[in-house]
């Protein structure tokens, strides 16, 4: 079997040059989708019967939560690839995924808490879903902290990849927390196989926001990774040319 593509994929230079062309499209898609979805969700969807207007927070809360979870897999898997094949590129992806995941889980927690006040009467409750989500944020922060801690970059990479892998246990706990424990948090209304338990009128803008968040995730993951690669490869000629020769 021809493994050349795999080794080429591990080359920072190849990755950098390949991904440059995708960036404007991903940026455009995220800006358009997120703007359309927000305007639609804020002004053009009717009020929720029980929750009033506070439920409009769903259009950022749910996509941020989905991506904070999906981003954990990105981080853990690229950390594992880095550990197994000692691929520099995949450690850079892991570090980028850690900072973006931290921002997304922070958004998820803050919007959730702001949504909780008018609907549940409290900003915070130590129940399963919220607590496990808070642990997710701490795991992301832990990976970021570890990746800056060791003086040798390789050992910092390995340590943070290990933490990322160990923290994977938390992911199924978050997914199933609303079913295992009877909690304040409502159960999942989006279904892949069966019909979703959400009104289609409310669902379309949510779908747009979810796709928009995915585009935003892909875009920022690439730009963060590319900057990390430039930093690590600053002694090489291609990185210097890239840094000094315009955008």
């Amino acid at each position, binding site marked *: 079997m021809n493994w050349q593509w795999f080794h080429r994929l591990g080359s920072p230079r190849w990755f950098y040059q390949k991904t440059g062309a995708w960036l404007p499209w991903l*940026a455009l898609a995220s800006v358009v989708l*997120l703007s359309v979805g*927000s305007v639609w969700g*804020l*002004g*053009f*969807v*009717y*009020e929720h019967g029980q929750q*009033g*207007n*506070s439920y*409009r*927070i769903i259009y*950022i*809360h749910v996509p*941020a939560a989905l991506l904070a979870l999906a981003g954990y897999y990105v981080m853990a898997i690229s950390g594992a690839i880095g550990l197994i094949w000692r691929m520099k590129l995949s450690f850079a992806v892991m570090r980028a995924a850690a*900072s*973006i995941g931290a*921002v997304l889980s*922070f*958004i998820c927690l*803050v*919007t959730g808490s*702001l*949504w909780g*006040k*008018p609907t549940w009467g409290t900003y915070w409750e130590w129940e399963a879903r919220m607590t496990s989500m808070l642990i997710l944020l701490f795991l992301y922060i832990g990976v970021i902290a570890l990746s800056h801690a060791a003086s040798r970059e390789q050992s910092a990479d390995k340590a943070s990849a290990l933490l990322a892998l160990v923290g994977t246990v938390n992911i199924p706990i978050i997914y199933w927390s609303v079913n295992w424990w009877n909690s304040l948090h409502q159960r999942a209304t989006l279904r892949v196989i069966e019909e979703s338990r959400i009104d289609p009128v409310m669902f379309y803008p949510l779908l747009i926001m979810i796709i928009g968040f995915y585009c*935003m995730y892909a*875009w*920022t993951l690439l*730009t*963060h990774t*590319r*900057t990390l690669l*430039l*930093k690590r490869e*600053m002694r090489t000629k291609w990185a*210097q040319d890239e*840094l*000094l020769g315009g955008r």
Partner: protein
Amino acid sequence: MEFQFANLSEFLTMGGHGIFVWVSYLMTFLALVGMAIYPRIARRRLQSELLRQQKNAQRRRRAVSERTATKAPDLAKEPA
């Protein structure tokens, strides 16, 4: 599909929930913008770091060549 609010002030207050909704959206907006522009700032920092390094290296090279230029005649004289 039509706009759900009668006027701007109703859109802003959202029946008492406005503050929660708007703070959520504003906070998310700021966080996403920060996430998007951070690589650009980091890149600019790297650029100036690289320029500084190159300038230092150049200065060092020039200093070394000046030193050898002034010392070379002395060294040449001594053994003679």
